[in-house]
């Protein structure tokens, strides 16, 4: 089947870059030229014809096809083996509960956090250890970038156009991590959210920037988790009081103390759900007294329930650090987890 996209000719790699930058088709960084061969390699890997409909964007009714996702995936520097992750992430983002238009247009300036689970992490070399939230490896770097380029080019989520972010954050270039399943006795994030461990899965969350914590001075689970809860209370005070999906990332050093004490992810989430809450009157201490009104005694938890906390095992082996990743804006967007390769109506590509 022919590709439907318009073809442009450029005489050099430099001309390709200028073509894409001049048209506003990039994130400001150079792109890999999306040639027909490269795009077809992605589609073949996923066994999808170019016009395979991945979904309809819910607000403006935009048809998202495999061909367009593949073009942007190539541009991001992905290999064909990364493409199924991009497809699954986008399928998840188009679920109503994710509220993709609102989350990507908002002045709040969140990014789409993508978390990988299951065997595909090992197949594509996605690392959940050193520098997990930074430039840890090729797979997570390029997959996260592909998500953003697709938003830019398929939904006009360009700064000042659909993207009205006041500040944004660096995760808007790429925000993808793999869970360190090999070095953890816990259930995986996807398992906690109903996916079998043997399946590969993608979780997406409309997420603020990570807030790093440190506590190297205790081995007690309650004290370690109190530091995470305190950072969430800070977010409730300084950013938004609305409850929703928070994520916490627990690297190996702190994880080992929790696992030695037989604390499961569920135990962690239940403890933090009890501790991560503030009184509305606390807003008066941080310059927001005007909105306390007569509700100062009201209690505001960070999550409506413990299962709204996404507990992720990732990070390098040394250092008593952790991270809290807050939601864009409470329950307006919900995290979505989908298994990879769950397509039920795919056809082999027609040559």
């Amino acid at each position, binding site marked *: 089947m022919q590709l439907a996209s318009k073809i442009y000719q450029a005489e050099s790699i430099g001309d390709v870059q200028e073509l894409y930058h001049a048209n506003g088709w990039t994130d400001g960084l150079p792109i890999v030229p999306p040639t027909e061969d490269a795009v077809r390699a992605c589609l073949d890997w996923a066994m999808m014809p170019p016009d395979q409909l991945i979904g309809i964007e819910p607000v403006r009714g935009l048809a998202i096809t495999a061909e367009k996702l593949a073009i942007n995936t190539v541009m991001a520097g992905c290999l064909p083996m990364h493409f199924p992750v991009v497809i699954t992430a986008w399928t998840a983002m188009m679920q109503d509960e994710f509220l993709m238009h609102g*989350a990507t247009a908002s002045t709040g300036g969140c990014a789409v956090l993508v978390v990988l689970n299951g065997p595909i992490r090992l197949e594509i070399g996605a690392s959940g250890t050193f520098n997990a939230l930074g430039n840890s490896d090729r797979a997570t770097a390029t997959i996260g970038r592909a998500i953003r380029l697709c938003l830019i080019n398929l939904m006009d989520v360009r700064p000042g156009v659909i993207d009205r972010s006041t500040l944004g954050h660096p995760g808007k270039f790429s925000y993808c991590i793999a869970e360190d399943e090999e070095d953890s006795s816990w259930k995986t994030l996807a398992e906690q959210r109903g996916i079998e461990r043997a399946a590969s899965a993608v979780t997406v969350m409309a997420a603020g920037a990570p807030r790093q914590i440190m506590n190297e001075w205790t081995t007690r689970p309650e004290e370690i988790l109190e530091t995470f809860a305190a950072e969430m209370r800070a977010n409730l005070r300084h950013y938004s009081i609305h409850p929703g999906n928070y994520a916490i990332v627990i690297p190996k050093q702190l994880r080992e103390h929790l696992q030695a004490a037989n604390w499961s992810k569920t135990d962690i989430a239940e403890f933090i759900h009890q501790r991560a809450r503030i009184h509305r009157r606390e807003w008066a201490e941080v310059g927001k007294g005007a909105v306390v009104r007569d509700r100062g005694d009201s209690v505001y938890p960070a999550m409506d329930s413990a299962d709204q906390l996404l507990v992720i095992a990732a990070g390098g082996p040394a250092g008593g650090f952790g991270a809290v990743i807050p939601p864009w804006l409470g329950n307006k967007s919900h995290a979505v987890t989908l298994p990879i390769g769950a397509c039920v109506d795919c056809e082999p590509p027609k040559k």
Partner: protein
Amino acid sequence: MTFRVLDPTAGEPPATGQRAPRLDTLQGKTVGLISNGKEGTKSFFAHLETMLREEYGVANVVSRTKSNYSAPADPHIVAEIGQWDAVISGIGD
């Protein structure tokens, strides 16, 4: 070396409808205001309502607020629009 590269954009979104005919006058009309509900909209729309009534002779102003300022207007609000002569939708922060 010549590169043949592909357009990464989705193209034009599907048409979502046509604009209603423009009104000749606002005199005696019913105008709906759809707010996203943020703090900054309150005084803005209150002043706009005063202007519409006092300066333009609008007969009725119907004010509605979305339940979620980050999502499209609620279906019951969209259903009401057909009863109005004009609608003003705005966001505020």
